[in-house]
Every structure is written in C-alpha cells, then in structure tokens.
C-alpha cells in the first residue's frame, strides 16, 4: 500500500477537500444562486424595455428608405464624384427604378423621405415618375432635364446621394436646428425653421421655473410639518399624500375646471368684483396653465424629501444659536438652512427630472404655447410620422435625463430613494 501523506499545511474539510477549494466552490454556488434569482427579471426588462429603447435609438440614425428601394441607383451614384452632373447610366438606372417603385407603390416613401431633406422633392419625384413612364428609350439625361430643370442642378443629386447612405446624422442635425447644405457641410437652419433649440431651451426654462416654484411652496410646508407635533403633522401629511395618490388625469381635469375662463376661479373673481365679466383671465390652454398644473402635480415630490431631511434636524441647534445672540433670521440662515441643503438637492433634481420629460399635462392644458419637448416627440410619432426625427429628439432628451440622473445618484444615492 502506497503511503498517502497529506500535506499537513493545507487545512481540509471533513470530506478531504482543501478548505480553500471548498470555499471557492460554495461562493461560486451562492453567486450562481443569486444570479439565478435576478436573471428572470433582468431578462424580462431587457426584452420588454431596454430593447425597445435601443431599437428607437437605432432608428434615429438609421436611414434605410433609399438604399432599400433604389439599390441600383445608389450603387450607380457611388461612382459620381459630386461635381457637375452624373453620367447617362445613372439617369437610366434612376428612370428604371422610378418606374418600378411607382408600380410597387413605394415611391411615396422615398418621396416623403427626400422631402424631409428638401421641400419640393415629393412633387418633383411624382411628376418625373409620371413622365418617365412614357419614355420608351434614352438618352434619359436630356429627357430628365426637359421634365424639370432641377435635375440639372448638382444639389438635387447631392441630396439623393447623401440621403441614400444607410446611416445618417441628419435627424440629429434637424433636432439641433442644423442641416447639410448642398456641399454637405453642416450649417444652421434658416431663421424661420429654427424651432427645436428654442423648444429645448423653453423646456429647460419651464422645468427650472417649476422646480423653483415647488421649492418655494414646498419648503415652508415641509418646515411646518417637521416642527409640528406628530399628530398634527400626520394630518397635514394626508393633504400632501392625497394629491400624490390621486390619478394624474383627475388632477389635470380639476385644474381645467378651476382655471378655464368659465371656470370656478374666474367665477369667484367676477363675483367678488375683482374683474369684470367681459375680461375674464385666460389661465389655461397656455403656458400659465402648464406651469400651475405641473407645479401642483410635482409639489409632493419636493415636499417628501424635504420633510424627511428636516425631520432629522434637532431644534436644539437653532435654540443654541439664538441663545448665543443670533437673531431668528441669522439662526435660520446660518444654522437651519445649511442642514436642509441635501433635501433641497434631492427634491429639486427629482422635480426637474420629472418636469423635463412631462407629456400629459402640457398636452392637455398647454394649448399652443405651453408645449414642451415631449409633446413634439409625440407629434412626430403620431401626426407627421417623421419617426427618425422623433427618435432623435427622444435620444437627446434621454441623454439629458441620464446626465441629470447620474448627478442625482452622486448627490442622493439611488438606494436612498424614498417612496411615499
């Protein structure tokens, strides 16, 4: 029998496996168990949520229309150097594909896509397709030039060649009020077409204003609730939580009821004689309506973090300051206020993040002037059907939100998020 000598320096478990190995195995097993528990939800969120968002972001740079329906023309245009006019073969291929896409009812998609780049392309294409169909043979170049003199311009061809690339930044450029000029350089849109930068700035400005209003209204009541005895403050808390739990649409409806020209507030003002029946104040279906309703809806998100911070501040500090000779204002500003800054930070960023992506309330009470960026995303999704632009606007908004959220995580910490 061979001598089996155990290395005495290695500690073993009862089944003879070195402790180190056993520990590693157990740790691995436990880790697999933990991953196994998280995996179902992780995969679920990945499929139902992350993939759709990724798909949308892809759509903001994707540009399949021309390369799908006009593959030969796009291939023929590859050889064109972008100066002067393309040669006869390009015209011939385009003529052929104009006819086939018209027959296949896909010309409209191409025409729409090109029309986003240059207004007038839609009519040019349908007119040309109609006339080209009657041509029996070439030379096509002269025929095209006869149909419309825009075919003799380099820029028309430059637009087609550029739009034919399967990946494009043009939606993002449009979303930032820029465009490609005929040479393919990035330039600003003409003055009358610049809307999105203004819209982004307006959204930022309105969100900031709503955050400040929420802070101004939330600070005093959070302070009052934090300093009152528990029984009273719990009663007051119900007044904060009830709107918080009430349906968003219910609250928006009631603001319409309150603020409209034939509504409750105007009626009261007329009744007590502050304003005449003729000049009722327009408080809704404009920016004022959006701001009032959104401040109301987001106020609990400011009050709750403020309250939870203020609740932990001992009143002794302020008393000590006053007994050392500070007047109440100094005691508040130098002693109490700095201790509430974490609550102010948490509440403000939360309200700002929520305000910047808000859709429902501006859509219902904002009228024409109270629309924010998300309303334009919805507009391009549902009305103009320019999905690429909607996706690009969404991508920019998402990037902004993620930066803000990263900030929130740095300041407050994701784990400290409190609900209700």
């Amino acid at each position, binding site marked *: 029998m061979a001598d089996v000598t155990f290395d005495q320096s290695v500690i073993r478990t009862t089944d003879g496996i070195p402790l180190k190995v056993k520990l590693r195995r157990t740790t691995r097993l*436990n*880790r697999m168990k933990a991953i196994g528990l998280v995996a179902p*939800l992780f995969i679920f969120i990945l499929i139902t949520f992350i993939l759709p968002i990724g798909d949308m972001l892809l759509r903001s740079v994707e540009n399949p229309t021309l390369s799908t329906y006009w593959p030969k023309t796009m291939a023929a245009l590859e050889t064109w150097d972008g100066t002067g006019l393309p040669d006869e073969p390009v015209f011939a291929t385009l003529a052929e594909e104009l006819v086939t896409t018209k027959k296949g009812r896909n010309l409209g998609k191409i025409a729409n896509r090109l029309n986003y780049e240059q207004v007038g392309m839609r009519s040019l294409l349908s007119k040309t397709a109609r006339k080209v169909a009657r041509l029996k043979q070439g030379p096509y170049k002269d025929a095209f030039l006869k149909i419309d003199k825009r075919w003799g311009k380099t820029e028309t061809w430059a637009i087609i060649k550029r739009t034919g690339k399967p990946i494009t930044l043009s939606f993002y450029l449009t979303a930032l009020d820029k465009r490609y000029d005929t040479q393919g350089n990035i330039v600003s849109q003409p003055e009358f077409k610049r809307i999105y930068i203004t819209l982004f700035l307006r959204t930022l400005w309105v969100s900031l204003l709503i955050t400040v209003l929420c802070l101004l209204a939330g600070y005093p009541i959070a302070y009052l609730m934090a300093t009152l005895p528990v029984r009273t403050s719990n009663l007051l808390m119900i007044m904060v939580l009830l709107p918080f*739990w009430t349906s968003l649409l219910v609250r928006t*409806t009631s603001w319409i*009821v309150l603020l409209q020209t034939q509504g*409750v507030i105007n009626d009261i003002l007329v009744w007590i004689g502050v304003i005449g029946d003729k000049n009722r104040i327009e408080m809704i279906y404009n920016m004022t309506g959006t701001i009032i309703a959104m401040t109301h809806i987001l106020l609990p998100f400011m009050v709750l973090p403020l309250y939870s911070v203020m609740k932990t501040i001992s009143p002794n500090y302020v008393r000590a300051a006053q007994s050392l000779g500070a007047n109440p204002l100094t005691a508040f500003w130098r002693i109490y206020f700095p201790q509430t800054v974490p609550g102010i930070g948490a509440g403000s960023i939360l309200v700002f993040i929520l305000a910047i992506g808000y859709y429902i309330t501006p859509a*219902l009470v904002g009228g024409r002037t109270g629309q924010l960026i998300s309303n334009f995303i919805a507009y391009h999704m549902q009305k103009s059907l320019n999905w690429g632009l909607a996706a690009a606007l969404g991508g920019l908004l998402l990037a902004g*939100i993620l930066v803000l959220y990263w900030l929130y995580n740095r300041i407050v910490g994701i784990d400290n998020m409190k*609900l209700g």
Partner: protein
Amino acid sequence: MALPPYVGPIGRTWHYTLRVICGMIFLFLIAPILVIIPLSFNAEPYFTFTQGMLTFDPAAYSLRWYQDFLANPQWMLAIKNSFIVGVSATILASGLGTIAALGLSRSYMPYRTFIMGILISPMIVPLIITAAGMYFFYSKIGLAQTLLGLILAHTALGTPFVVITVTATLVGFDHSLTRAAANLGANPTRTFFKITMPLILPGVISGGLFAFITSFDEVVVVLFLAGFEQRTIPRQMWAGIREQISPTILAVATLLITFSIILMTVLELLRRRNERLRGIRG
C-alpha cells in the same frame, strides 16, 4: 409648536404669517380635489357651481353623471381593461420583482449597482420615450394593440417599485432565521414560504400597490400601444378631456379619488404593521 415666551412681536407676527402662507399652499394642494367632488353631483352640464348649488338647493344636485357613467358601455369596457391590465401587471411585477430583490440583497451578487440601474431604469426614463420605443418595437413583434402588450409594458414600468420596496424591507432582514429553519430540516421552498415570505410580505404588498397604481394611472404608453378595444380608464378620460368634454369625467374622477383614498389607507396600515413586525417602533 407653542411659541416660547421670549419671542418678540416680530417673531410672533412672522410665526402667524408663516402659518397663513402654509395654509394657502395646503389649499393649493387640496383645492382641485375639493372642487371636483361637489361638482360631480351637479345637475347641470356645467363645470362650475350653479346658483342652486351655492344655496344648497337639493334640486341642483343629482346623480345623473354617475348614471351616465354606469350606462356607458365604453366606460365599462375601460374599467374591465384597466383591471385586467392592472391586476396581471401587478402579479407579474410582484413575482419577478420579489425574486430579483431576494437575489439582489445577497452579498454574493456581482455587478450589483449596474444591475440595479438596469432594473429600475423604467422608472427613470421619461414615459414618452418609453412609449415611443415600445410603439416601434411592439408593432414589429405583433404586440401592439393587444392586451398582452399592455400588460408586459406595465409590468416593466411597475417592477422598479417592487424591487425598491422589497430590497428596503430586506435590509433589516435577520438571515439567521432562514439558517435556523434550514438547520431544523426545512427545505429552501418551505423556508421561503414559512419564514421569509411572511416577514417581507408588507414590502411585497406595498410594492405591488405602487405597481398597480402605476398601471392604473398610466396613459402615455396606453396612448401609443392600445387600440380602441384596449382603452383603459385613463385613456378614456384623456379622450373625454380632449374630445367630448362632459361632466361624466367628474363622476369618474370622484370615484377614482375614493379609490385612491382606500389604497392610501391600506398602504399606511401595511407600513405600520411592517414597522411593528421589524421592531422599529414599539
């Protein structure tokens, strides 16, 4: 907070000014809810108080908008859809969320922060972006305009609340209890249902309630994903505000307020039970 005797006249004035200001802010918070309830009993099709209502004339009040609501098949369909979607999404979200929270709260979990970030992202991303993304994607895979699509979407939106509340409940969880159960011969399933589950139940239920409210009140995703047949209560209200504005909406609103008061009470009772069980407060 009674005023201490050393406070001077300025302090006294300020004290009462603050209370008046706070009173006005509380009025601002509660006014919309206070106004909508009496107006839903208006006998006239107006959105404002009539002369009769102000003098408490019984003839000026009626239940006609409630009858209107109950007689309307579209509203009944909306209620049915809302409950089907809400309840299914809540069950799915509570199940998936609770299991994931159990895994996340184990110290062996790798990349915890990253995974947590992904799991709660549906709460962070603005709804309009979520809705836009889902609209494209769900149309591609044939889930748009189906109740199943809505249920999956609302489950995704609801899970962050379950994950957060259950993880918070598990922070104070005493793991020696499960070890003791295992030591006494219980298998993991039995340990889970007999030991872990009763202790984290308040967290699961309050997370589930949040998920339910989220689904029940959600309209942006519904606007994009649902067809006419899948309309939910908020979608129907949206149509009511946008298209044919009628005081029936006020009746529905009042019912929803009552409903949210009930849910709020349940949640508060659960919170108290949870604190008592975990011995945070006596």
